């Protein structure tokens, strides 16, 4: 019987320790090569490729918390294989469009008419594409070759089948995708912090580990703290998704807060990590860039940081609660000061 602090709902959203152990053991010290579809095959064999999808669609129905553990764990290994996107967003969209589960691994792309990201064709069987146009939304399941045509020509070829989905489903999918990317950023940041901590305690200059210098301690302490802050915000959004996934007025603020925090943290963590690693951290050979470049890329996928900042502000100005803390409730001040009213 786990001890839960009074005042929490810990039990409802905890992850089965066996699932957690399996994920950690399997991902182990694996560091992904850039296009590692074989790695997905291994996860699939072990029943980890579709943790959140429902059982009648070949999934484990284990929910967001378990799937989030996997996404973070893979991101800690700098793995770009879109397991989370496929399970938590792609299959979810297909289901809501009344389509069967697609074989293999899907990436997810929200086509906003720009060329904002290259789909890595060799890692996936197909791509779930979401397009929103005015008040309407539709999805298609496209093979990588077709997606490549769209990337090159800027247009979708004829013959792609578009299935309409309600606009709120499209918005839901975008939030889920945004949260998956946020989890990736958090995983990559955690590894960057680990690399930095290890390095400064081992690297010696002036007769001592560079960790002994306060200036270095400040860089590492700050990046670790900012990373932890973002991680809690993303974790809180996962809880909202798990407990209130159908309530847009709860998940939108939670995801927006999480993505804003993660995006800004990534900038600081990447910068501080490279600063303490020195020149060797800038090389292809050293592993650091795989985490820092990944966090900087991922923080702009599924929505960019500044847009999320604006989204948070828009919600607050519109008197929506961002979370438990509500700055809107207070101040019925009857101040009248010379030259103005409150």
């Amino acid at each position, binding site marked *: 019987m786990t001890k839960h602090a009074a005042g929490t709902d810990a039990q409802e959203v905890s992850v089965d320790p066996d699932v957690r152990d399996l994920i950690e053991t399997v991902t182990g010290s694996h560091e992904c090569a850039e296009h590692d579809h074989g790695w997905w095959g291994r996860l699939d064999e072990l029943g980890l490729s579709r943790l959140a999808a429902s059982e009648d669609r070949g999934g484990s129905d284990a929910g967001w918390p378990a799937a989030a553990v996997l996404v973070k764990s893979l991101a800690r290994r700098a793995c770009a294989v879109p397991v989370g996107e496929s399970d938590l967003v792609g299959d979810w969209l297909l289901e809501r469009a009344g389509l069967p589960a697609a074989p293999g691994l899907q990436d997810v792309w929200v086509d906003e008419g720009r060329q904002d990201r290259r789909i890595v064709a060799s890692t996936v069987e197909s791509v779930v594409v979401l397009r929103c146009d005015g008040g309407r939304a539709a999805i298609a399941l496209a093979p990588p070759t077709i997606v490549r045509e769209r990337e090159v020509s800027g247009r979708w070829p004829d013959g792609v089948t578009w299935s309409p989905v309600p606009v709120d489903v499209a918005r839901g999918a975008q939030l889920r995708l945004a949260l998956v990317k946020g989890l990736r950023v958090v995983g990559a940041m955690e590894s960057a912090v680990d690399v930095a901590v290890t390095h400064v305690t081992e690297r010696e200059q002036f007769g001592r580990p560079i960790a002994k210098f306060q200036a270095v301690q400040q860089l590492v302490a700050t990046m670790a703290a900012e990373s932890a802050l973002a991680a809690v915000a993303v974790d809180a959004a996962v809880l909202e998704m798990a407990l209130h996934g159908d309530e847009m007025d709860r998940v939108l603020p939670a995801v927006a807060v999480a993505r804003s925090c993660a995006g800004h943290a990534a900038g600081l963590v990447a910068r501080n990590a490279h600063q303490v690693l020195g020149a060797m951290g800038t090389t292809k050979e050293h592993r650091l860039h795989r985490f820092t470049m990944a966090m900087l890329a991922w923080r702009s996928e599924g929505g960019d940081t500044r847009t999320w900042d604006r989204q948070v*502000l828009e919600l607050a100005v519109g008197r929506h609660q961002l979370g438990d803390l509500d700055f809107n409730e207070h101040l019925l001040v009857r101040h009248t000061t010379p030259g103005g009213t409150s």
Partner: protein
Amino acid sequence: MKRPLALAAVHPRSDLGDLRREVVEFLHDQQDQGLFVPTVDSWLTGWSADFSKAVAGRGWLGMTIPTEHGGHGLSYLERFVVTEELLLAGSPVAAHWVADRQAAPTILRFGTDEQKARLLPAIAQAEVFFAIGMSEPDSGSDLASVRSRGRRVDGGWSVSGTKLWTSGAHHADLMVALVRTSGQHGDRQQGLSQLMIDLSSNGIEVRPIIGMNGSHHFNEVVFDDVFVPDSGVLGSEGHGWSQVTSELGFERSGPERFLSVAPLVTELLKAIRSRAVDPSPDVGQILARFQALHQMSFAVAAALQSEQEADTAAAAVKMLGTASEGALVELADLLVAPTRDGRVIDELVDQASAQRPGFTLRGGTNEVLQGVVARGLGLR
């Protein structure tokens, strides 16, 4: 790899939301009656015995004190949400702040039965107010170097020395002072005691320290052979240091470490809403940050409630939170400056700007906290 900052977010039970709403209603009511005006840094600057008594009357002081000692036997998380709402409204909680937040837990943990019986119910009823005496003219960050001395006399101690930056000492009834009672200066953490000193005693002089904006919250308190009876010794003689450090996790991670400028945040949102101020995305960034700080702070409180170690995480919350308070003040100042017009928000910005330097200095400077986090990570 040590990961002392790895915290899981905690989802609050729904009844904590109900408790928040009760506190908000109480605060609206108090404001409707004109009983307080929201201020920045109200837990330091807003002293109102009447307000504290009203809060006590609702059962919101001594929340975590067991009922057999006159408290309400509730959890740290319930106390946490009440504190957040009181701070969000910028309400005048300074009078009971030290008593409820620091003195009560210490008395509960280390006090004698007589002290518990005499003081805990009184704290819960806002009938006794405390100040904290730690810093001295020559001892700021280096607290173990304090020179205030207690000399053994018949039935107690005779205390001489000077305490500095004691907020509210000009109002409070008792001061919990860190004083050397054995050994000598240079023994550092050994031989220090916590003494509860009656501030109406002979030999005490409280001199105001005026802040740069003309306000008076801090004091210099000079002790000249002040008698403190044995019943004023809190915990064990000579073990004051470990007593002080035992509560640091709670003290460092509380919502006052990121909500000192909450009324200014609310006013800034109003100003953006009415288009008096530009809707800068930087405001969105900092609002998101405050939510995250709340989540991290709440998670630390939950960890401490379950008696898990969270001192490094608590230091990180304080470090990030106080810096964010300052960042909000800076941002607000930049945003309101083009249209300054004697508005409420302008007044709050001025209040906040004067209070801001203290945010990252009090209760452990950010530079010291960085060192604490670094130590927790294994760097020192």
